[in-house]
């Protein structure tokens, strides 16, 4: 699998996700500056977490207009997998590669902690190594993770099995207590119709190393390597 991480001014989880990818592939993962207009041959593009352009105006809004994003869009059309984590999810909604938007957390505070997620679908290259309804522990760290969309789009996401992860309690129950940021329908991550783009607020790269306290994020990267073996 050939992978690359896009770097915007203010990205700050770029190195973290690079480490996780390299751990799973055993191969170097390229870093691509946002002003580039061309991409090398790739199987996976990651848009990392951070504060692109300081999250000024709206999180991800300015990065969405970076030169490289035109090329990213073109690649998604040809089926290349794109993973947007946290601020990367913001960028994907701002470019309208994914529907909806991430608003200010309901509690109006930045939240950094491990949360429980329920795997809602295993039918994607990102989630195939998990079991359906499996409860996994992955950290969140964001100000704006409160997913919102219109009722028709929500119904479409559900009908098309495009909700990848929901926030849940330790037993896998979907309820207010397990929802850290007020997200509509407890949505933590969604797929596009073609299922080659995943946007998620939690950070799988932060728990992919036992020394850091857990490895529930690792099956995502291992699964991508298996699915996208070149």
């Amino acid at each position, binding site marked *: 699998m050939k992978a690359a991480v896009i770097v915007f*001014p*203010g990205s*700050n*989880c770029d*190195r*973290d996700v690079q*480490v*996780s990818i390299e751990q799973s592939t055993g191969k170097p993962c390229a870093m691509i500056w946002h002003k580039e207009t061309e991409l090398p041959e790739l199987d996976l593009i990651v848009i990392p*977490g*951070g*504060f692109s*352009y*300081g*999250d*000024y105006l709206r999180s991800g809004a300015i990065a969405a207009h970076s030169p490289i994003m035109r090329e990213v869009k073109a690649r998604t059309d040809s089926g290349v997998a794109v993973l947007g984590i946290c601020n990367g999810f913001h960028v994907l909604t701002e470019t309208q590669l994914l529907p909806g938007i991430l608003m200010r957390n309901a509690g109006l*505070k*930045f*939240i*950094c*902690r491990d949360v429980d997620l329920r795997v809602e679908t295993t039918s994607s290259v990102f989630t195939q190594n998990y079991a359906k309804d499996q409860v996994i522990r992955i*950290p969140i*760290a964001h*100000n704006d993770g409160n997913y919102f969309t219109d009722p028709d789009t929500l119904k479409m996401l559900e009908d098309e099995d495009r909700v990848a992860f929901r926030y849940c309690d330790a037993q896998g129950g979907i309820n207010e207590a397990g929802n850290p940021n007020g997200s509509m329908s407890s949505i933590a991550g969604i797929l596009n119709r073609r299922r080659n783009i995943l946007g998620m607020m939690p*950070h799988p*790269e*932060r728990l992919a*190393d036992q*020394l*850091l*306290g857990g490895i529930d994020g690792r099956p995502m990267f291992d699964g991508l390597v298996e699915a996208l073996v070149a």
Partner: protein
Amino acid sequence: MSKITPEIVKEHGLTEDEYDKVLEIMGREPNITELGIFSVMWSEHCSYKSSKKWLKTLHTEEPWVICGPGENAGIVDIGDGQAAIFKMESHNHPSFIEPFQGAATGVGGIMRDIFTMGARPVANMNALRFGRPDHPKTKHLVNGVVAGIGSYGNCMGVPTVGGECEFDTSYDGNILVNAMTVGVADTEKIFYSAAAGEGYPLVYVGSRTGRDGIHGATMASAEFDDDTDEKRPTVQVGDPFTEKLVLEACLELMATDAIIGIQDMGAAGLTCSTFEMASKGGVGVEMDLDLVPKRAADMTAYELMLSESQERMVMVLKPGREEEARKIFEKWELNFAVVGRLTDTGRLVLKMGGEIVGDLPIDPLAEASPEYDRPWVATSKPAILDAADVPAPNDPCAALKRMIGSPNFAQKRWIWDQYDHMVMGDTVQRPGGDSAVVRVHGTPKGLAITTDCTPRYCYADPFEGGKQVVAEAWRNITAVGAKPLAITDCLNFGNPERPEIMGQFVGCIEGMGEACRTLEFPVVSGNVSFYNETRGEGIRPTPTIGGIGVLTDVAKAVSCAFSAADEDIVLIGETNGHLGRSAYLAEIEGRDEGAPPPVDLAIERRNGDAVRGMIDDGLVSACHDLSDGGVFVALAEMAMAGDMGAAIDAPDTGIALHAWLFGEDQARYLVTSRDAKTVLAKAAEAGVPASIIGRTGSDRLTVGQSLSISVSELKSAHEDWMPNFMSAP
């Protein structure tokens, strides 16, 4: 040119004597820009004029120290050609006036100090002290300070891995915001501030200069009065996004060999940074203020030199390397301007509109700044309080629950949830333990980091308190298994012109110095914050210590959480039941009396070295240092962290039960082990008192037959206070 009147001199915080010295150095009357420069250079904040004499007595050298006090930050060798660069700094006054921006820019400033030296910041810590919880301003200040620290560190992508938060009425009018950053660099790639090379270009990078924080340095050196709210406009606004770009651009340029010297602009901005660089390098500087990037075209020379706009740096480059450097900064969309040249005149010459607007000698001003031997009186030693004079509680478990649910013991997750403590992917031990532990990226090594202070002890007996703060930092680092290396100090005190305050300062420094020497734990950086007083009411002496240590194998680090049932719990160190100035006395009895526990540094060292050896040998599954609240609070913390209880045998020591449970004797640890026999043997070998006091297991913490409380009951008391307090109307 405006005439300098005595009123103008006074407004600039200079005494008559100091102004006479200005006239002597200048050989003429200074203009207003020059006077402004003298005033900030000679402010307490920049010159350390009241503290210099005493700071010189601190212990600052050990073989692993690469750079001690005097640079932007201290540097220690962590092996394999790598160095840890770290410092703690106060941003107390700005944070009281505008908590969000004050705290945020404090964090931004300390991170700049670290990456100026070539290190990538890898961890932030902070020590916060607020007034009593029911003071009308406290909640607002907590909210703003925590959000401000989070906003800056989170956006920079540097994890905030721990710290402390205390509430006490002595901080009602003067909160303390002490921020610490630790960075890692290659020892071959460390950058200093000294300028050198006649004709070499002086370069300005980063944000434009605006009218922010003019005279922030003099504000930080003055007592608050009723007009403090009027001082609001002088507080700077932080832009962490720009600082993230400055960080990346600087590190990119530092990977080349184009830089001769580099200095960030902190307090007193362009003035302090150019003086520092020139003075250290023994050169002169000629600067054209027309070339300085500005936010407003009509800024005066005075404003440009004194502005405290954030996210700016100055550097001296090798000649001919300007374009290479400019390209890097332009890639990161930052300002880059050659604003002057080095000269051999030993003078700072400022030009604007083709005219000379300032001309000052550098050495007399920077190095001959005033130094005072302020009169001081030693704090009288309090009498020792006998445990028999402290009533036993009816129910020790209820007392324990009350203590761990009190503001100063309650869990501070409400705070650290707002800090990204995991970014950079190396946080091995998260906030809440004895020390935070971060892996040194790409290596098996780890850094242990802690901040500590017990102002209760320092107030009662500055000398013993000063020893204790250093010893506690050393102990916290030891408790995770790391070798303590060095400390940074952030010395927060009241008005040094009052002899009793100066006496507190001297006492603390002397105690700290002794502890640093015995524990081989030198001070390598720090700052002094005086004038933490409002209407003559000073804070308790608060010499906050930030300590770091190194683990050669980070996988060996232990936490304080009980990790398995049926393990023996071993108490290491001697227990005498010292209740004077204890947390028990304060929280349960509401009394602030007696002498603090004495610190025997030789014993401290002996016990700590033994514990560290046991951790290194893999004998220990959990370890916690004993401090505030003694054995019982430590046991509760270990139980809550591991979600597991313990059965403690009724002590048979001749010490009153409540003194045994809550006494704060120093140099003690609790460890758990599957092989307590070997732990006891190792302790005996080292001459360290140690005994098995109980076993882990069940969901209750029990002592003997009659005392028992469930871990979940403890947890709710411990976890609920802070969120309830902050959400209450």
